[in-house]
């Protein structure tokens, strides 16, 4: 199963390549894909090569949702819409930081597009700088730990909740570590009229600093520790939640990654980890994961 043609420049163990494959498998050939600037765009389209076997367009970093709006409107105006799916696929920076305004506009207007955020929790393409999706206390190149810091000082922006608040008919969180589940959700999203949103957690081997063979394993640990809740929200209501029986302690997830290594060696690290456990506990309660 590989819809993304081989030969692209993704790293070994790359989450983006996996995510793109799952999305393409779910949406099929009758689709147009819009990509903001980022790893996925750079690694798949070194001119004159392209790994995309569906029509694909990249414009800029912050406008993928707006470009998708235009693609969809043009298909309708020209009488070519048919069953063609318009799917934007971007990283966390291009979606919930610099691309926030454009995606908010598209969802407020009710445009018939699906947006998939591939969330690897930092600006990986530029060398692992923090984004609004970087988790609490994670080390990045712009949120390094030091005598005055445990790393990123803020928790992740709750983008799925923001998109649901726009009145989206379908918002779902998922993870590249659960391919069948992710494909089911993407398929469901593109089948629903209106703006639908998929937020896929995506462990990055270079940015999170784990072995290239561990991408799927790390993603599962995020779910099993309740740090990444997986649910579906339809017309504002949470309709389905992936239960986590006996959630693992967050240490299991944190110690497997270089970006949290400092928490296990620094003075006061225990307290910092306890605060992360509190985030998982809140997720368990808020989303009813147990």
């Amino acid at each position, binding site marked *: 199963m590989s819809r993304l043609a081989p030969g692209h420049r993704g790293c070994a163990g790359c989450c983006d390549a996996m995510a793109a494959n799952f999305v393409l498998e779910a949406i099929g*050939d*009758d*689709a*147009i894909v*819009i990509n903001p600037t980022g790893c996925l*765009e*750079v690694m798949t*389209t*070194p*001119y*004159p090569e*392209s790994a*995309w*076997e*569906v*029509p*694909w*367009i*990249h*414009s*800029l970093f*912050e*406008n993928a949702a*707006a*470009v*998708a*709006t*235009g*693609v*969809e*409107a*043009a*298909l*309708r*105006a*020209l*009488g*070519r819409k048919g069953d*063609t799916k318009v799917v934007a696929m971007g990283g966390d920076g291009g979606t919930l930081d610099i691309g926030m*305004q*454009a995606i*908010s*506009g598209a969802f*407020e*207007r009710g445009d018939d597009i699906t947006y998939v955020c591939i969330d690897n929790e930092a600006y990986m393409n530029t060398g692992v700088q923090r984004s609004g999706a970087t988790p609490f206390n994670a080390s990045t190149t712009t949120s390094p730990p030091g005598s005055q810091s445990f790393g990123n000082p803020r928790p992740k922006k709750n983008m799925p909740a923001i998109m649901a608040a726009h009145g989206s008919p379908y918002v779902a969180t998922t993870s590249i570590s659960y391919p069948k589940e992710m494909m089911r959700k993407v398929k469901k999203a593109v089948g629903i009229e209106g703006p639908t949103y998929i937020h896929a957690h995506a462990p990055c081997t270079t940015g999170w600093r784990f072995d290239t063979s561990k991408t799927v394993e790390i993603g599962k640990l995020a779910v099993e520790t309740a740090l990444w809740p997986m649910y579906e929200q339809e017309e504002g209501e949470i309709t389905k939640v992936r239960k986590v029986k006996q959630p693992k302690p967050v240490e299991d997830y944190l110690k497997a990654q270089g970006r949290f290594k400092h928490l296990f060696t620094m003075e006061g690290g225990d307290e910092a980890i306890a605060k992360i456990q509190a985030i998982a506990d809140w997720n368990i309660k808020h989303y009813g994961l147990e």
Partner: protein
Amino acid sequence: MTGKMTVVEGSYAVAHAVKICRPNVISAYPITPQTHIVEDLSQFMADGEIPNCEYINVESEFSAISTLVGASAVGARTYSSTTSQGLELMHEVLFNVSGMRLPIVMTVANRAVSAPINIWNDHQDSISQRDTGWMQLYAEDPQEAADMTAQAYRVAEDKDIMLPAMVCMDGFILSHVYEPVILLEQELTDEYLPGFEPEHILDPAKPKTFGAFADPSTYTEFRYLQQKGMDAALEKIENAADDFNKIFGRYYGGLIDTYEAEDAEILLFAMGSVVGTIKDVIDRARTEGVKVGLVKVRAFRPFPVEAIRKVVKDASVIVTLDKNISLGLNEGALCTEVKSCLYNTDINIPVIGFLLGHGGRDIPRRNIRMIIDKAKQVIRSGVTIESEYADLRGELI
């Protein structure tokens, strides 16, 4: 001249022209003084007067032009309109549009830029987008702005060009003035402007990649080919004006137009609505025996280097009038560009520049007359002025 004259607002004339050009996707964000254009288009949409068209009310100018990137790549004829801060906000996307060879047409209702905030006319907004790879055409009056819209689509969508175009009309002065205008006729426009059928589109039946990553081994050639498109546009802009004349019986010049220029010792250069005032002043000065003429620059990009070299050769002094300034150089863009196209030639005519009409300051005839008088001094006693404001209020400084 064909057609019936009706008195309409400049914005309406343009909106009507857009409708007649059969756009497929319109996307815009409101900003003074562009608003009347998009309001009129919205009403046309509400009344079902634009077939096969979608109008997108976006949340910013950035998204207005970004939506058109997607729409144009699908093969839609696209339109937007903006000005000033809106155009500046689009800046990043403007490069993207021209680099992807998307022939979007956009009306710029020219306005000053902030700070200080000012909603009135000058050309700083579009001139600041000079190097974005868009063609820039400047209209003298509402009729020309409307007709230029159809001309812009024809040139932009030409397969040898495939570059976006701005039709620049002075904010308020042209956008809000009521004048007799012949509205574009559908039948004649259909004859003049063929449907948009681009060679490359986003289509699941024939997948293509748009907006790929070009490294140092290929990037230069993309830029080179954009310039080739601009080069090709020089002739096609002339052709588009000639063919328009054949079908509609209206002509405003091609790349440039001239007025009393043939024997002129003093040759003024200007763009936009001030051209009308200048013509009045020239008429008066001519009765007094002053040999003064005008070059109206219609195309600022591509810049008509050859046409200008040809037209100036017998003048004694060239005088540019600019509603914009390059801060740090103390010149307007016309001044700099006209000078640069005379270098490395055997033409040796002094060029002096005047800055005026910034932030909507009125340009009375006496100011133009004063400029002509200063130019006469240059003929008599050589260049004593390089570039200066013609309407500075010294008492405020």
